[in-house]
């Protein structure tokens, strides 16, 4: 395991988590992107030490980096790319409708939390 990459993973995760817990949709997208980076770097770091590109004929097999985690990571990059783009499209749509990019609280949940009785409960019970 590579210590420098380990720290990079930790840093990316921490900043990513900080951003996704914000209220602005654009920062959530940014944070999500950083969390994706953290994951792919973690995969690569866990897959073995650095080496020559794994291309047969261009390097001795012993000097190559492990190709298997690279193949997995490639999938991870592409899927997280797809999801990020979709998030961006949703965010743009929200901006078109509300004029802003803030994540609103769920009003129904707030109402339930504020009221005394659960929905559908006999009212006289709540009073006693």
């Amino acid at each position, binding site marked *: *395991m*590579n*210590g*420098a*990459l380990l*720290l990079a993973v*930790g840093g990316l995760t*921490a*900043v990513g*988590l*900080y*951003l*996704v*817990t914000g*209220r*602005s949709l*654009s920062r959530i*997208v940014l944070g999500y*992107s*950083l969390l994706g980076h953290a994951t*792919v*770097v973690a995969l*690569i*770091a866990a897959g073995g*030490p*650095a080496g020559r*590109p*794994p*291309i*047969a004929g*261009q390097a001795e097999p012993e000097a*190559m*980096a*492990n*190709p*298997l985690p*690279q*193949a997995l*990571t*490639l*999938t991870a*990059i592409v899927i997280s790319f797809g999801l990020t*783009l979709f998030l*961006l*499209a949703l965010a743009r*749509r929200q901006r078109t409708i*509300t004029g*802003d990019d*803030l994540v609103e*609280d*769920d009003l*129904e*949940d*707030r109402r*339930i*939390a504020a009221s005394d009785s*659960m929905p559908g*409960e006999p009212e*006289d019970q709540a009073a*006693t």
Partner: protein
Amino acid sequence: MIFGLLILHVAVCVLLAATSRRLGRSGLLVGAVPPAVTAVWAATRLGDHQPVSADVAWVPGLDLAMTFRVDAFVDIMTLIVSGIGFGVFVYAYGYFAPGADGIGRFAATLLAFSTAMLGLVWADSVWSLFVFWELTSVTSFLLIGHKNTDKQAQVAARQALMITAGGGLVLLAGLLLVTRSAGTTLISEMLPVDGATATLGAVLVMVGAATKSAQVPFHPWLPSAMIAPTPVSAYLHSATMVKAGVVLVAVMGPALGGLPAWKACGLAFGVASIFWGAIGALRHRDAKLVLAWGTVSQLGMLITLFSVGTAKAVLAAVTLLVAHALFKGALFLVVGEIDVRAGTRNIDELGGLARSMPIACTVAVLAGLSMAGAPPLLGFVAKEAAIKAALALEGPEAWIVGFGVIAGSVLTVAYTARFLVTVFGAGPETALAPRRHALSVPAAVLGLAGLVGYAALGPLNGVLGSAARLAGAAEVSDLHRWPGLTLDLGISAIVLALGASLGLVLSRRLGHVPAEYGARWADASIEATMTFGRATSARLQHGSLPVYLVTMAGTAALAALPFLGYVSFDHVVAWDTPLQAVLAVTVIGAALALSFVGTRLAAGLALGAAGIAVAAVFVVHGAADLALTQLLVEAAIVVGFVLAFGHLSRSFPRVGLRWRAVRMTVAGLGGAAVVVGLAAASRSPVAEPPLSEMATASVDEGGGSNIVNVILTDIRALDTLGEVLVLATVALGVLALARASDRPEGSAS
């Protein structure tokens, strides 16, 4: 056969639910078919000593299976459940007016209960037992709340559900502990257990049984449940469902009976309920409530006898179980008929029914005498057996059980006498609606059954005896129709005389309607539970996405704590090349910059910087394909980000310092947790990758020299196809969202 019957029940139940509107009242007669078939099957098996069983594996690895087993004891219970069930369906046909509301729903639910109850008594695996146990609680809830617009019915239904389903959870905990000590989940295979775990488990099982069988202090739900239509009260709340706890104590008796705590708990619940129930029956003026409180008392007697566990006590308990189902069922049905025809069941307003309802009166007197334990009825045999069992005990147990049985019997006679005298005796003549045969016939059959049982005690002896043997009695003596001039008979005579005079004295005293002591306690604790639930959900489900995420991330970070012990840096090197350290610092720096900048455009650029730094990490690592892909992807995302947000000039919303500190702490913890997890995982490195084999295979079999590409297009071709599909779907979604009208929904177009 077992599965066949269950499937028949379920099929008819579904049919009733689907056609509830069209069938109306006749749905009740359709619903009577499966219980009738089952009752006939159980009757043909009476006295058969060979148990039948059936099972279907569910999760074999976890020892989860639906296992059913019908032995002699269970066979008697089946006959009670289905035989009385059949009678109740017919009775309900007479009870409801044609075209009354929700009869189809009622028939389907009643049959669903019948199915669940059969599953409960047939279950051999404790997990099947638990599932059906909870199903009976749920169907009971639905049936109590049948008049679903009535506030009182709603409250009563909820109370019953909270107490019985809550007790079910206690039972589940108990069963987990007991099966752990017993080493098997099959009740029929359990051997006597001991030890602290088993003791705790046994106590929890007993508490679960006590909630279902309405034992003090869990009894208040049973009187409240009398708000249900009378067929339900007769079926669920006297003959069958409330017996579930008793049946549980009976079948677990052989395994748990040796534990002192089991017996102590059972006696405490049982004896307390015998007295408190009987006192309740003497205090109330609603005929149905009198019977319900009487049921609490009789269930206490059953729990007492089964937890004593001697051969005589178990035999007495099995006999009383049968007798009680017959006489209490009959009495409820009679009260229901009175309620329907007289329009009231308050014993102050009833009178002279002996003359105007002769059949009902005869049935009630027969059933009442059986309840009081007078000859020549089955109840007499049961009570004689109980007294004999109590007298055969030794030590303090003899005193407790003897006192409970004998003094309890006196009170039973007293409330029976008071009930019969006040309902049928002299008084103002009550006006009556015309007779309905569907109402009187089932009641008469149940009432006469007590007499028939007494007369046919010879053959019945074998049946009850083999049942008692299975419920834990080692050797079984015979029941006697007439004990002869013994001490038992003397006690019986005194009990009858004392009880009858007490009952007659009390029946003339028309006191005030007493307050419900227990119910207030139950309501308060249920209210407290609801308040707690409201407070919890208000706190947890407050609707704020950031708070949800912080809660989840914090919890996940804490879950990484145990891995701290496994962290080892033996396999961690600082870097492969110093360049990696530089790049790591760059990546973190870009990420931090990204979180500090104030405008979205700058943030987008910082994101690009971080992405390029990650691509450089790939290059250094020897992952050229990744670096290329990363660069392309990053460029697309930065462009997309700027398109989506770039012209939003407003700066990011301000947040409070404290909340920001919380988020930073949790984020830091999350980052640390990932580092800890990875460092812990690196302790056990996998084998060296077979690089040269991969290189050779890539060229020879994959036909390409780039190993990563060969893996993606050959080895993981299907995954890659899926990936392509994901991207295509995303593209469609993005396109749809981008082309959607720019006007908000609902505005004029």
